[in-house]
């Protein structure tokens, strides 16, 4: 990068070799639209973070760590919906600061380590989805920092990051009303569009629209929703949301198992 003197200088610009490759017509194969990829989840794996979780779903690998609660830094930092409104309630509630970053080698093209607007948008989406689940009123004047790192993007990255972040918060012992489970969907293009649950990267690239839903399974409330693209009829969007919520409910037992195992490991390792 020309102006970045904190990193080792490389060439001014570079192109990925895929641009010059013979055109491979890779269209995603047809599949059952309600299939969820098998998920591997593990909590409590980083030694330096208060709580951590690793989630792997198909090719998507996400690692999330939680630190805090720490004294909130005063002033206009980050911002969020808590800024507006009455003085006393906003000042007393804790804050959740979410940071989403993609590793430079996580996608087809190398991304600069600095990231950009998209990562900030996703960080905000994470914060908005996790806030309903965390009892921030129990952490007055404190801030909890959640950082999610996407090691490999195999489709439904935001959904995986949401789930990993909720697991990490639970692993850190942060008081929560419920876990947050995320699920991604994508709409196939063409004359008869269908919504696919848990799309792979190839399916996402060839899609006409994408949607991520976040559900709190026990309370059965939607914590977050982020979608974009050309969707068509409104009914298809409601169907998609319903499909996504079912997917989240199916995922929940796996996450419960993961947390139970992590708690057992922690109690076995504790000296007393």
């Amino acid at each position, binding site marked *: 990068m020309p102006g970045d003197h904190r990193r080792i200088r490389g060439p001014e610009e*570079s192109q990925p070799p*895929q641009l010059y490759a013979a055109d491979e017509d890779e269209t995603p194969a047809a599949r059952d639209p309600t299939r969820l990829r098998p998920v591997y989840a593990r909590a409590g794996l*980083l030694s*330096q*973070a208060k709580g951590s979780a690793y989630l792997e779903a198909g090719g998507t690998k996400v690692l999330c760590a939680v630190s805090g609660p720490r004294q909130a830094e005063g002033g206009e930092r980050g911002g969020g919906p808590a800024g507006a409104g009455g003085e006393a309630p906003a000042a007393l509630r804790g804050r959740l600061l979410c940071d989403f970053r993609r590793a430079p080698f996580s996608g087809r093209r190398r991304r600069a380590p600095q990231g950009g607007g998209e990562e900030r948008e996703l960080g905000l989406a994470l914060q908005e989805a996790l806030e309903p689940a965390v009892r921030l009123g129990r952490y007055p004047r404190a801030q909890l920092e959640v*950082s999610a790192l996407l090691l*490999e993007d195999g489709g439904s990255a935001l959904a995986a990051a949401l789930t990993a972040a909720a697991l990490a918060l639970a692993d850190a012992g942060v008081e929560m009303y419920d876990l947050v489970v995320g699920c991604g969907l994508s709409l196939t293009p063409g004359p008869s569009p269908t919504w696919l649950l848990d799309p792979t990267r190839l399916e996402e690239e060839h899609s006409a629209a994408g949607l991520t839903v976040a559900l709190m399974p026990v309370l059965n409330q939607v914590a977050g929703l982020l979608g974009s693209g050309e969707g068509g009829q409104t009914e298809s969007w409601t169907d998609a949301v319903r499909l996504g919520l079912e997917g989240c409910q199916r995922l929940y037992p796996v996450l419960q198992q993961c947390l139970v195992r992590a708690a057992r490991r922690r109690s076995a390792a504790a000296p007393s």
Partner: protein
Amino acid sequence: MAAGFKTVEPLEYYRRFLKENCRPDGRELGEFRTTTVNIGSISTADGSALVKLGNTTIVCGVKAEFAAPPLDAPDRGYVVPNVDLPPLCSSRFRTGPPGEEAQVASQFIADVIENSQIIKKEDLCISPGKLAWVLYCDLICLDYDGNILDACTFALLAALKNVQLPEVTINEETALAEVNLKKKSYLNVRTTPVATSFAVFDDTLLIVDPTGEEEHLSTGTLTIVMDEEGKLCCLHKPGGSGLTGAKLQDCMSRAVTRHKEVNKLLDEVIQSMKHK
């Protein structure tokens, strides 16, 4: 009770152990933590490796792209390392541009690449003056528990050995590159630089592979990078207490034995990958 003493007087706590020639986690002064390496797990990267040195975890991903060679060296490619210490790995790091420690680590890796000639930049050139490979080596620390330089060097080495570049031919008529993604070949990794880090305690005692706490309590650090012929590639001693020449020689011989251990581990892993 021991935990209380450790919090109040960490240095005294360590000195009690060092007097008996051992450390709180049970290691000898010259013993490394358990090293594990996992190669090729990230399929979007051209080459990847994950190294765990005790709790310290570093993941390295290499992406290869095309670029025009530098004007002053038209027959060379680029190798661009970047070490990232995100807030994920330790609470002392903040989001934002790379801090001092990350910059120092990136520069150290760049020096190791340059001095050890692990990849000859001439090998990366496809067409002199027109097209060359640029290898972006991104190292991300997932868990910071001391001794990241050793882990970074090992991760970089393992990832480079895992990199497969597609075949490129320059079409004479159109002067454009043609890439065949189906035919891939491994990089020519010429040397195997291995780093060994030491921490100096109380200006006299040297311990190998310090953890995060030990680094914090130490009065100096030293990192030696050796390659397979016992040649010194890089020596990094950022200030701290002075060392006598004899102590330095001891460190170098320890670095040579460490090189053999790491080489053996890496060969085993690569062999097991080939058998798949």
